[in-house]
């Protein structure tokens, strides 16, 4: 069972919820931090990270002696990462997505692929929770290869909590791909609702069953619950706004340390989303 935690808007509590779910689980669980541009689940989970591996993207390397300057590489590249000049080709490896198209179309075999390091993946344990996170190197632009590496390191047999990056673009898609069910976390603000609708549209297109958790709730009836009622979306949990939670957060303590009474609630959410995932499969 793979549960992806997404949001649309940043800073709504994805990591807070993902950590709480991992800590509340009653079966063996792993936590994957796919928010590789700013992985911060480790601050709350405090894992003992023992393994580390680099992540590479294959980028083109041009042999000028073989290049005829025909321009086939430049025409196939959708990212302007390789261009053809008189008699040779110039590579901008920081723009390359590593698709390999240029080396396939090169008629003279002038293009080989070389590894370009863009980040790393670390693994270990936080108590009983298996923990893996990815980290994109500062100055590199492409996080999906690092995210895919995080997911490749995962144990396919464990209950898996995927902490996704915010937004609905490639990093989010790379993170949520293959999930059995999704939980979208948002806050009851105009911005939280607006970006939730984007995330809902995205997850619906992917055909992944999902529910919503509302964080920092002042009133049980709010703009997000109204929207979810209209759309027939399950509101799985509403987390009340509490100063004690913010204080715990600022010290790197988990939500369940500040509000242990929520633990059974998160266990219920795990059961509920498991049913949603299985219902979808049938």
């Amino acid at each position: 069972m793979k549960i992806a935690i997404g949001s649309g808007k940043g800073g709504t509590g994805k990591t807070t919820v993902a950590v709480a779910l991992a800590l509340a689980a009653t079966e063996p669980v792993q936590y994957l931090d796919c928010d590789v541009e700013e992985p911060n689940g480790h601050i709350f989970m405090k894992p003992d990270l023992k393994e580390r591996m680099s992540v590479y993207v294959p980028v083109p390397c041009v042999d000028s002696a073989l290049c005829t300057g025909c321009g086939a590489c430049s025409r196939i590249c959708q990212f302007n990462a390789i261009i053809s000049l008189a008699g040779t080709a110039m590579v901008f490896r920081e723009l390359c997505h590593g698709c390999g198209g240029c080396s396939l179309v090169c008629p003279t075999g002038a293009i080989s692929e070389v590894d370009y390091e863009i980040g790393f993946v670390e693994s270990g344990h936080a108590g009983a929770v298996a923990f893996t996170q990815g980290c994109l190197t500062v100055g590199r632009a492409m996080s999906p290869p690092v995210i895919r590496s995080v997911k490749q390191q995962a144990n396919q047999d464990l209950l898996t909590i995927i902490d996704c990056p915010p937004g609905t673009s490639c990093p989010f898609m790379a993170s949520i791909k293959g999930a059995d069910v999704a939980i979208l976390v948002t806050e009851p603000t105009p911005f939280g609702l607006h970006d939730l609708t984007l995330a809902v549209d995205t997850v619906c297109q992917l055909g992944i069953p999902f529910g919503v958790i509302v964080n920092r709730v002042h009133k049980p009836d709010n703009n997000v619950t109204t929207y979810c009622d209209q759309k027939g979306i399950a509101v799985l949990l509403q987390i009340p706004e509490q100063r004690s939670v913010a204080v715990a957060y600022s010290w790197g303590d988990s939500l369940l340390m500040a509000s242990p009474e929520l633990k059974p609630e998160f266990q219920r959410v795990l059961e509920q989303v498991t049913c949603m995932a299985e219902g979808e499969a049938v």
Partner: protein
Amino acid sequence: MKLVITTTGQTLDAPMDRRFGRAEGFLVYDLETEVYTVIDNHQNFQAAQGAGIQAAQHVVNCGARAVITGHCGPKAFRVLSAAKVAIYNCEAATVADAIDQYKSGHLKPAQSADVEGHWV
């Protein structure tokens, strides 16, 4: 010899475009015949990345030996330099003014990029 001037319009009296990679278009001017054509750059205008690189490729492909623009970033500069295309940063109001400044020798070739990428 052909010159390329980044432009916002279709004629010599059009305002220059200060941008290179995301210029609206490129006016290709033949100094010998004084004939010009305009290359549309709208596809590049909306490129997610690599606009300067692709724009430089256009310039190289059209056979120009010099570019007059407002600003040029590091990647475009690298491509144009490798293709031995001279780059002139210019504040002229119109394309015609820029060509006049070039002809009268007022412009000096840039020795490096004068802005970071994505400077707008």
